[in-house]
């Protein structure tokens, strides 16, 4: 993929949380949705998706149940818990503040004052 950006590790959980905010999904559909929505710019190591999901289940942000996927296969569906929802709100808030701050510095036109 041309101009693919290296995926920041901490953000994967945030993206999963956001993805699940639309409703329960299994791991593959989460991967596909992220890929589609980010226009394939984010190079996601699929292998790191599942450990992140399991860890989030351990932390209580998501709940897992086994069901049948669209192609009639046994799949593990994840859904947000109440804790997960508040976690999503908090972390996305932080992310935007971080992005804003970085953007401000990058857009600055004045040279920093040296003392």
């Amino acid at each position, binding site marked *: 993929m041309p101009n693919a950006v290296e995926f920041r590790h901490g953000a994967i959980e945030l993206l999963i949380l956001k993805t699940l905010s639309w409703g329960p999904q299994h791991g*593959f559909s989460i991967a596909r949705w992220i890929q589609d929505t980010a226009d394939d710019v984010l190079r996601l190591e699929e292998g790191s998706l599942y450990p992140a999901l399991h860890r989030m289940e351990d932390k*209580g942000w998501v709940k897992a149940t086994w069901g049948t996927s669209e192609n009639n296969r046994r799949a593990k569906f994840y859904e947000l818990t109440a804790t997960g929802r508040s976690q999503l709100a908090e972390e996305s808030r932080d992310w935007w503040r971080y992005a804003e701050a970085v953007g401000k510095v990058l857009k600055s036109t004045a040279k920093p004052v040296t003392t």
Partner: protein
Amino acid sequence: MSSDEPIWRRYRDLIRRRPADDVADEVRHHLEMRRDEALRAGLDPKHAADAARERFGDVAGVVAELNAIDSARERHRVRRDWLAGFRQDFRFAIRSLRRSPVFAVTAMLTLAIAIGANTTIFSFVNALLLEPLPYRRPQELVSVGSSIVGSAGELAALRERTRSFSTLGMYRQRSIALSDDREATQVEGIEITPSLLATLGVDPIAGTLFGGEASQRGNGAVIVLSHAFWLERYGGDRGIVGRQITVDGSSYRVLGVMPRSFAFPTLSARFWVPITIDGTDITRTWAIGGNRFVGRLAAGVTPARALAEARAVLPGMRRLNPIWDPGERYGDETTVEPMQRQLLSAERPALQLLFACVLVVLLIACVNLANLMLARVTARDREFAVRAALGGGRARLVRQLLTETVTMALVGGALGCGLAVAGVRWAASAMPSTVARTTHVELDAHVLLFTAGLSIVTGLAFGILPAFRAASSAGSSSAAHFGRGAGAGGSHQRLTSMLVVGEVALAVMLAITAGLLARSFNALRNASPGFVTDQVITARITPPPASYRDSARVTALYTMLMTRIGGLPGVASVGVVNRLPIAGPIYGMGMRVQGQFEDGRQRLPSADHVLTVSPGYLSAVGIPIVRGRSFTDADRIGAQPVALVSRALAERFWPKDDAIGKRIGYPYESPWLTIVGIVPDVRLDSLRDTTAIAVYVPFAQRASRSAEMTLVTRTNATVPAMAREIREAVHSLDRTIPVSDVRSMNEVLSSSVAQSRFMTTLVAGFALAALLLGATGIYGVMSYAVSRRTHEMGVRMALGATPGNIFGLVVGRGAVLAALGALIGCALALGATRTLGSLLFGVSATDPLTFSVATVLFVLVAIAASAAPARRATRSDPARALREA
């Protein structure tokens, strides 16, 4: 989290697949979806599958990671469940104990006493036997001993010739007279080589230790004080360091004060002075000095290697001794052992015995409690059956009961620690002086840890049988429990009977031990040393060496003193002796015998004891002359040197001849002593002394320059009155002479058996406790048996049995159990009491009288304990008993 999951979901776990399969499924699903996508895009199947895997990344690695996360989660869940279950068990245990307060309180009190006793004894075992000595690298400190003379000359030679020791020094007991502005007092302490004191590695809290030059003559007038002595005599005043004090008439400088925890070799050492090795004085350098050699092993050297080197080097040193030949076997049996072991070699077996006894008492208490718990468990049969029917697991039941017992045990253990604090204080004050003073004994972390561990083990021990009993009864068909359950009662009874037999066996073993010790003590107490001890009062006189160096002056002093005291009303006779028998060991020495052993090839024989006495001593203690004559005033300096010998000595060296007129001598170049009289054999070292080769030398002709003597008087005055008179008489001659240790000879005898008395008291106490516990156990078992068999009793009585028959039946059963237990106990004791060896006196370890008395005693106790239940059995109404079928 998981513990909030609804119940039905938990049960679904029963048919859930293994977590690893789930992980595999999840990953496979993703890969298949990706492959399907690729297929739809037009790739062929194989490439599609590969592309999917490639896009995924390290499949195996991810699977492993997922499995790790999931199994960690599972572990946490299990642990949380387990803890929650445990908390539940604990709450349930408290509730169930509260429901039967009498049982709970009884159990906890019993445990408190039993565990408390164990904690007390263990405190001593820990402090004395287990704790490493508080010196620098104590494992390197060793004692070198036995089969050597223990003299300064040997020390110097060993230092030169061996490489195994980085430091080698010696120490011996020293008694000094301290006389500042206060009255002169006698103080016990230690003379020690400076390098040895330094190598122990303990810094003084004030001042310094002596440097090496202090051991040369002339610079020796320094002294280091012990903490206790410093507090006692100088009120903890730091200004005492550097000041001069008067020791034995000379001026000594106080160099330093040791910390409170320093006690070398025991707490009774109140000061340390450097040993002065005077190379010019041959008799002092090479005489038997009562010195103990202690050294620090060089780096990497083991005691075994040092021992080998010592044994190799010592024989070569035989000819170094200028005054006597120690013989061919010199150094053969020398030992090198860790200092810690050697310091307590006498007390070790006694402590170990006490520890074993107190553990046995705890074991017996456990048996009783197990029986009690069994009874409770049987009473709760229905409760357990219901639990089983509702799905409670057997393992869970066992765990719950064990929680109950361990909780009781821990509470009992905590109470026991409180009791132990008082127990340790009592024991430390009641223990014979040498042991208790070795170190400070307290309940430290090790002891508390031991108590906690012991409590848990105890709880498990007496809970395990009832717990399994409950589990097995819960497992069997529940219907039986709603009936009479006679079958279950039968196995229960067998179990409790076996436990009681075991309990009695242990108690009998303890009783036999106590009996043997008691008989030993009695024999000791009644043992006569062979001389008169009634109306004999002794006092230690210690003229300061500085002003009493001249032999003639010392003789004159004592002669005047004895005249003065002999003239007092009520004093029948008075004499002096250099060391008081029974109060401590009486040393001997090698001995020349004229006409024998003179070819120089054999080792010189030794006289076990050599005593310096005045003529009045023998009459004061009532030692008669068997043949020949006693000493008189004519036996003085300048007259012919004479000696008295014991009968054993006479018979050993002149079995067919008369010893009178024969000659013996000191083991160095000196005039022969002519034997003028023979006295009977008496005990000298202690009441257990069996060595009887003794030589008596007249006080006026003594070889030693020490002026210290013990005054011995036969008088009908009381000890306090006599103490006053003696002090007055001594101080009228010289105010600076301390008078100490005024006591009657009977008192001396009594303190010499103090350890035996102490041991006997303690073990007898334990045996009594065991007896009470055993009696309670038998009573409990018999009561239970009777209550279970009322139906049977009813039938018997209906068929014509008299109350007497029933009584006999029950009591007989109790007696049989006790007899069986006693037999087993005797068998165990036969093996175990052999180890008592050194502690026994005058009685064999397999003494039949003690064994039979213990057996009969327990059978009688069993009969008494069964009497009340038996009476109850005879009172039961046959008609009603039958109806309750």
